[in-house]
């Protein structure tokens, strides 16, 4: 059990470091497969939604894409965003 917890601790630190340096909106993070970060906070989620809203207004979208649907580079997001923007 101790070895498993050790592995989890090591993995958590690695994941935390990625969370610290990542930029969810930068295209260079499109390769990251899991768009779920245990470290995310409510304040960030609110700010992100607010930012999306502004971006959506800029791009003429109907509304911001909720975070659940914001899986960068996935076929699903492309379909969802494509359907909304008509592109």
């Amino acid at each position: 059990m101790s070895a498993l917890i050790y592995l989890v601790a090591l993995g958590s630190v690695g994941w935390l470091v990625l969370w610290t340096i990542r930029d969810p909106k930068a295209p260079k993070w499109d390769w990251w497969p899991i768009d779920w970060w245990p470290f995310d906070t409510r304040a960030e989620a609110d700010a992100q939604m607010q930012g999306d809203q502004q971006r959506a207004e800029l791009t003429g979208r109907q509304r911001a894409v909720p975070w659940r649907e914001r899986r960068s580079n996935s076929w699903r997001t492309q379909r969802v965003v494509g359907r909304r923007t008509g592109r």
Partner: protein
Amino acid sequence: MRSLLLLVEMVALLPISLMYPFVGVLLFDWISFMNPQQISWGFASSLPWALIAFVFTMAGWILSPVEPKRIAVTPLTVMIVLFVIGITVNLPFSLAPAAYAYDAWLRTAKIFLFLIVTASLLTDKHRIDAMIWLIIISIGYYILDQGGISVITLGAHKAFGPPNSQITDNNCFAAAVLVIVPLMNYLRLQSRHALIRTGFGLAIGLSILTVLASYSRGALLGVLAVGFAFWLKSKKKVLSLVVIVTGLLVGVLFMPEKWWERMDTIRHYQHDASAESRLFIWRVAWQLFKQHPLTGVGFHATAFHYVIDMISPGGNVHDIHSIWLQILAEQGIVVFCIWLGMIAAGWVGCRRLARASRNHPEVAWAADLARMGQISILAYVVTGTFLPISSWDVFFTVLVTVGAANPIVARQLAGQATPSEGSTWRRRVRPMRPIRPISGGLGASP
């Protein structure tokens, strides 16, 4: 195997700290708080990971074109610098053997000087949260490990902290757990995910069980003090009272008969060898302070018989089990006042943060952080009264982390960007260009 995993992790993450020095801060603190190399039992255990992380961090900080190079000047960081100067001035007056005194001084000076680097790079909320997560992962490993074993053995296992650290001892480990429980609650309040919030609820329960499983009587008093402080700071008084009382009752009822016997000795402390030795070393510490009021006798000098013999010939050697008497006897009145000033600066920083964030829902996170920071400080001073953890790195990192929130909140309320928002990777986010309408076809004018 663990050695190999640690090596892979560090080799993967250290280069990142050259680009993002805050990652180096996280790695240095992880090595210091969790001591993962000490439990890797292989070639990695003998490598100087903290030194390597320090070199990478400093190189990254110096070379980084975007990180602010300004040293954070706050009452707390000024006190930290004065503390390092104070212990350096006291070093030649230490009664411990020179090499031993030098090692202890170097270890303490490194911890406190790195706090200045930490304070300077804690430039936004994201980093504050990352630091708190790191503290919880580091100590949380031992809570899961030791607390887990205690649950399996129905409380028979005595919980201990990271090997070769300031909190190895069961009493000190229990104090450490109590200090980080409020931080867990802060992240629970802030987390975006229901799964994580539930996880933290369970983790807090396991932490209390781990504290009880340390069989530390001082920690039992600490649990009561922290529980009371939680209730005092909670917004829903009735609900919190029910949760805290139920949690504590479940915890103590879970513990076996020998735990109750141990706790029962609080009432008859005059006949308990452990309590007697503690009272003895307190008396010795006070006499040593009176003999060396300005410079003290040096870090851990009471671990040597000839120092104890100066006061009480033939007495047993001990660390001074009280943060107050420890710093007073070991470093003298001047450093004691500076050390007290650090804690006071941390407390005042929390109060300022709470005041600044009041009536501002956009910085509600800071109000939570301030409340939980105050409970952490309370946990430290209550449990520390019976323990030798006067220069425990995690606690002072908590002070620095909470203190760093003040300028961030002030900037946020003033509508300014944080230095890292304006200067690090976040700067590279460009606003999306408006999509040109395509309905007009190729011949449409732009």
